[in-house]
């Protein structure tokens, strides 16, 4: 009995200490992690889809809740506004569509006045290197620039990848999702 008590106590102690240490580390790293995510993933994308601004879209980012996930936790949309002289003329935000192997995250930049795309940039995907992964190439993303977003985009508007139709469709779907999102939340994004 004493033996077992000892086992339990030692294990519990180790687990407890481990829990405390990790909670502490988690706390320490929470900020940097959030920053790293934006810095590494979003910033380059934002900079590539927006241009001609005089503010810092990263600093000026706004986020607002757009619903709940399936566990009831709120989900926010982060929008990066591009401003000239304090006026938002374009926004960039993340949208996603389903590609060949799971979701494709796309940073979409839209000129809020003309409703035209200022550019797109794929920020997360799991497509096949050499096939679907060609959605990363400028040759694929460039033709999106300037597309009119007042109606849904189709594959014919852009340069579809041969041999990777599904990936192409995923990106197009992401852009179309962005169109819906913009329509829904335009007031919160542009102010």
């Amino acid at each position, binding site marked *: 009995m004493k033996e077992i008590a000892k086992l339990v106590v030692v294990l519990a102690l180790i687990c407890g200490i*481990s*829990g405390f240490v*990790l909670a502490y580390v*988690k706390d320490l790293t929470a900020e940097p992690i959030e920053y790293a995510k934006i810095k590494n993933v979003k910033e380059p994308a934002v900079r590539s889809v927006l241009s001609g601004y005089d503010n810092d879209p990263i600093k000026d980012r706004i986020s607002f809740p757009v619903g709940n996930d*399936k*566990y009831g936790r709120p989900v926010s949309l982060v929008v990066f506004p591009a401003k000239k002289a304090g006026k938002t003329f374009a926004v960039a935000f993340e949208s996603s569509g*389903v*590609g*060949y*192997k*799971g979701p494709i995250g796309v940073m979409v930049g839209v000129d809020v006045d003309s409703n035209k795309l200022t550019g797109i940039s794929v920020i997360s995907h799991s497509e096949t290197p050499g096939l679907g992964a060609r959605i990363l190439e400028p040759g694929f993303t460039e033709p999106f620039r300037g597309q009119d977003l007042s109606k849904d985009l189709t594959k014919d508007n852009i340069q579809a990848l041969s041999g990777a139709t*599904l990936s192409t469709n995923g990106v197009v779907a992401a852009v179309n999702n962005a169109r819906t999102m913009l329509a829904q939340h335009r007031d919160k994004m542009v102010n």
Partner: protein
Amino acid sequence: MGFGDYMLFIVGAVLVNNILLAQFLGNCPFLGVSKRMDTATGMSMAVVFVITLAGACTWLVQYYILIPFNIEYLQTIFFILVIASLVQLVEIIMQKTVPGLYRALGIYLPLITTNCAVLGVAIINIQKEFDFVQMLVFSFASAVGYGLALCLFAGIRERFALARIPKVFEGTALGLVTAGFMSLAFSGFAGLVGH
């Protein structure tokens, strides 16, 4: 998901995205216990059993402990503890209740604790946000895929035992090359299941 969807899902997990040949999980036991067909089948059965059970337990831990208490960052540590104790528990229960099965699978059980495939499948279950039934099906199918690859591989390796293999390639080196060939062959299944 309808029945047909489940079938595709299963084919995907067993053949197309085989956890071993396409996702690199569980290689150490794959190379360790594939020299003979009978040990390979024993290991396969043990793996199917443990992966499915562990998938269920870790899923419950994730959604009823980690998420409610907002400690998802402790996933790794919780999961491995759950798996390790589960394997121990299974071992003890099996020994008491079904000694026959225990004798057949027992020696493989400890090996499985340190098998990336078990923890890997548990983590993938969460990453892909499966519901409970999907999780069960996926875990089971992945494990079957693992077992299938293991048994086919054992068949091939048994043939190597009856061949004059160059000295420097004997054993693991040739095993790896052959696993590469199997992976090559399994790439033929690519695209059979769209997402």
